[in-house]
């Protein structure tokens, strides 16, 4: 009883405080609110699509987002046709739900890089659903090999299914289900990797820098090895970029692009060419 009274009095106090600030003053903040909403509308859209819809669907279906994506692909794409799988993925991500893949536009940059350099050994950090793995694998020369690292068990299962669906076998794509910071130092012993021609980073943005330093320390990078890091501007990896620019070990290029499947948010991919240790 007493508690409810005190609660009521507090409510009253808050209400009086609110009343003290006149509605006119509150209304004067309306333009600010409108400005913020209009200026950052794309971010609100992203928030809605990437968080709210996901949460609702998760509750409704009981499946994870990745599994839903796989189901959709299974029903809509042609098995064994990498292009078809990628297209279906893009469609699902842009029309149905949002998954942060590399996307078609930035994927073109990746394709071009692959064509230019023809890497033999590729390390992919962050398989997620296998979109980028499929994308890399389809443009690799014969005899090349991808080591794809994924931390999450469920995602890795989905990714493996999708990769197999696209028609790539274990000789070509080696899926490693472990955290990246454990995998990188053991690449040489466990998998017999001598040199990495291309490293594609698309996992946690926080891990970009430590993983890059691990790679430097492992000695797997040779002169001319390329490290491609996605999403360096949004969500962004400022420390990674700073290190890459300042260490003098790399030639850094940032490809400006838009965030995948969403309009109006700028993003970029960093292309680091290892210059060799002097």
């Amino acid at each position: 009883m007493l508690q409810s009274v005190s609660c009521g009095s507090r409510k009253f106090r808050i209400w009086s405080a609110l009343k003290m600030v006149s509605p006119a003053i509150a209304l004067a903040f309306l333009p600010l609110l409108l400005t913020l909403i209009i200026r950052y509308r794309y971010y609100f859209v992203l928030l809605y699509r990437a968080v709210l819809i996901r949460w609702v669907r998760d509750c409704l279906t009981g499946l994870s987002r990745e599994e839903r994506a796989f189901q959709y692909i299974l029903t809509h794409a042609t098995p064994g046709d990498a292009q078809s799988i990628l297209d279906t993925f893009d469609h699902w991500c842009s029309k149905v739900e949002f998954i942060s893949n590399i996307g078609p536009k930035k994927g073109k940059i990746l394709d071009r890089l692959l064509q230019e350099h023809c890497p033999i050994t590729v390390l992919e950090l962050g398989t997620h659903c296998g979109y980028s793995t499929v994308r890399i694998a389809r443009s690799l020369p014969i005899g090349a090999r991808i080591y794809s690292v994924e931390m999450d068990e469920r995602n890795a299962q989905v990714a493996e299914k999708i990769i197999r669906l696209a028609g790539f076998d274990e000789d070509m794509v080696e899926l490693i289900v472990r955290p990246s910071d454990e995998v990188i130092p053991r690449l040489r012993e466990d998998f017999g990797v001598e040199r990495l021609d291309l490293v594609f980073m698309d996992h946690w943005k926080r891990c970009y820098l430590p993983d890059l330093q691990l790679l430097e320390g492992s000695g797997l990078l040779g002169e001319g090895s390329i490290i491609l890091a996605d999403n360096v501007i949004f969500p962004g990896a400022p420390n990674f970029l700073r290190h890459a620019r300042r260490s003098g070990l790399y030639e850094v290029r940032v490809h400006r692009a838009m965030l995948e499947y969403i309009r109006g948010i700028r993003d970029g991919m960093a292309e680091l060419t290892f210059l060799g240790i002097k």
Partner: protein
Amino acid sequence: MPRHKLIASESDVSIEVDEGKDNEFSLYYVEVEENSKGGKEKQATRDGKRRRARNGEVSRRRASEKRTTNMANKRAEKKHEKHHKTTRKEGERHRKRQRRRIADEEEAEEESSKEKKNIKNERTKTLKLEDEKEKDVKKKRKKHVKNQEDDANPGKTKQKDCQDVPLKEKKKKRKKPETTSESESQSESQSESNSDSEAKDNQAVGVLGSLTPEELEKLKEAVDERKKLITTIKGKPWPMKKKLVILRESQEFVEKYEGALGKGKGRKLYAYKVLMMKKWMKFERDLENFKTACIPWEMKIKEIESHFGSSVASYFIFLRWMYGINMILFGLTFGLVMVPEALMGKPYGSMPRKTVPREEEASAMNFAVLWDFGGYAKYSVLFYGYYNNQRAIGWLKFRMPLSYFLVGVGTVAYSYMVVIRTMARNANEEGGGDDTSFNFSWKTFTSWDYLIGNPETADNKFASITTSFKEAIVEEQESRKDDNIHLTRFLRVLANFLVLCCLAGSGYLIYFVVRRSQKFALEGLENYGWWERNEVNMVMSLLGMFCPMLFDVISTLENYHPRIALQWQLGRIFALFLGNLYTFIIALMDAIQLKRAEEEIVKKNMTIWQANLYNGTVPDNSTAPPITVHPADVPRGPCWETMVGQEFVRLIISDTMTTYITLLIGDFIRAVLVRFLNNCWCWDLEYGFPSYSEFDVSGNVLGLIFNQGMIWMGAFYAPCLPALNLLRLHVSMYLQCWAVMCCNVPQERVFKASGSNNFYMAMLLVILFLSTLPAIYTIVSFPPSFDCGPFSGKNRMFDVIQETLETDFPAWFGKVFSYASNPGLVLPFLLLLVLAIYYLQSTSKTYKRVNMELKKKLQTQNEENKKKNKLAALKAANELEQARKAGEQRSNSASDLGVNEESSSLDEAGHHRQAGQNGRLIHPSQSQHAQSSEPPVSSTHTTTRPPASRSHTASGHLPGHPQQPQKNSHSNRR
């Protein structure tokens, strides 16, 4: 062998020769010292002879100089040195022997001349000492050098020559074709004459004269040459390093030898003059620097300009200009109104209007009250109500009410004058027409500021030039772009509609707030809190802050060029502020009406109160001394003028506070957060969501303009407003400079604001007009309060003029004035004025048109010239082609070498054609000459090809006849 190589080798040789001679003369030294043991006394007697001998030599040399040019002379000497080195040495040894044979005199000749030089130098040195002690060290060094030179007397000129060589090389190269052959031919005779003269030195007996004028002349020449070089070094097509090195060398040289020039008595004067000249130049330079430093905030603004482009800088320049205006307004109000009243007027507490009323006394010193400009602040010189209506105050008989009125009018008149004058000047600068035809060339060749000496400033300038290039490129791109016109039109209409909605909304909100505040005021403000009392100001400030943001967001729809977008933005914010201001003024007018109604009541009560006072205390005796009532107890009217002044002061204060708080929160705190949270945040704060803020030019400019408008409106009722504004501007200058440099990033789309300055001015003029309107309305239509202010007791405020005319001027003046103000005179005068304005305007229009036409004419002429040049170049190329064909036909029988030559000349012709197409006319005959004069040289040395001659002397031949000039050049050379 190419000519310059020859020269280089010559100079090398000459240096070698000099060294050899130095050795020889060191030999002499020894001998002379041996001699001087015994012959110290003799030397004095010998002086005359030696001098005579030297003079003889000099005269002969002069004669030879007259025959040839100086350059030829030097080269000839060098040639002579080269060819006859050994023979000359022998000759000199022979001379030595001769001298020894004659007596000690001859042998000591060199030594004595050295001695003489010493004496001379010492004399100059002492003179110098009188002038300047600094130069002493240099002088000594100079003397040392001189001595050496004197020792190596015959070699001295050569030494100088080799110093001069790098300088003269260029000239030599240029003059080569004409001079070389001559010089070679002359060199023989010259060298012979030289050697002759030196051989004859011994026997020469001349007249008494001055000391070695030849050396002096040469020195002077060299110094002059260096000076010329120093002045023209900017224009030389050399790399910067070379320029610097040569500049330094020649400056040193001039420094060293300048003082020694001039003769005898004149020398001191000359040295003094040079010294003074240098000092003067240095002083001028320092003065210039000082002047720049004196322009307030110039360096800050330049720095900002270099980082943020001219549009942001234009805001700060505008701010500075505004500061200047306010300085004068402040000077007027402070010097003619506030200070006289404070010094000479009645002191505080002497009258009711100068005293805090009894009921307010308790809280009069509270900070909250003072902050609201109540209490003691209200009853001080800061506000209208404090001033007394006494006609003349103090021992100066200062006419206070008149001064108050005239200052009020004068500030506004001055502001009008300044704004209009600045507008006119800016309009002149604009000039009309498009000057963009050579935009990039202008920028490339004229942007660097050569006065910059500070590396940091140079960096800044570099950055600023880069920025300006970016601006120009963006502009160029904007002008070329074309989009879907219907979509853009629709979007623009939509944007304007949205903005109108926003304006209407904000207007309604302010109206609502003002109505509410009137309700509060009627019920008595004391019952309400701070929020209610300051609601109007708060809402106005907030709307003024947030609505521009919204407009900015909306304006991205429109896709205008940044400068046009800025103007739209300015216009919209202008409308918003104007609406806010006028709503505020309307509310104030209502308040004035209320106060006046209250005043009527107080007036009535006053008479009752007075009657009560007298009746109650002195019932019967009317002659008793008046009862003294403490002024604080006297009832008084509400004094609406002070109320208006207070409102404006409060508005200014709240506006300033809002600005600063916005600056601190919106810019500084945000920047700090972005900077330091960036390391531990999940996305890139700097590039992504909050990022750093950009400097909002339009909002700031309009804030400034409206602030000024409020000052103009309120200054009549609150003389402290200009002072407050001055303070505000001063603080905001520093604060905003700091904030811009520390928390803002340059705009993504940099653009220049050359055209917007006049736009600002136009807005300022409009605001000035709009702000003087209400002030004039109140002055003209309302009678002043009966018990406060300088005009109390009068029917209208401007009656003070009439009063002054009647009482302070002679009667005839009043009469004249009344005649002059007769409508029969005033109307024709006004008519005349209008006619004059019309006439002047039409004339200026005509001038403008004529100017435009002239400009167009110039442009067309320019284009025609270009075309002509192109044609001429093409023609020349054709002719060359023909000539080449003809030459080929003829040289088919000739040797391979000739063919090679032709092909290379073809290359050159091609180059020339290209150059011609680029717009520069190269006369065909010249290029012809250039290629045709070469063969003799290039036939011997096919690898290196000296630069083509530019001389016009040998260009008389016709194009298409390559054979003839070849012959010419052959004959020239041999």
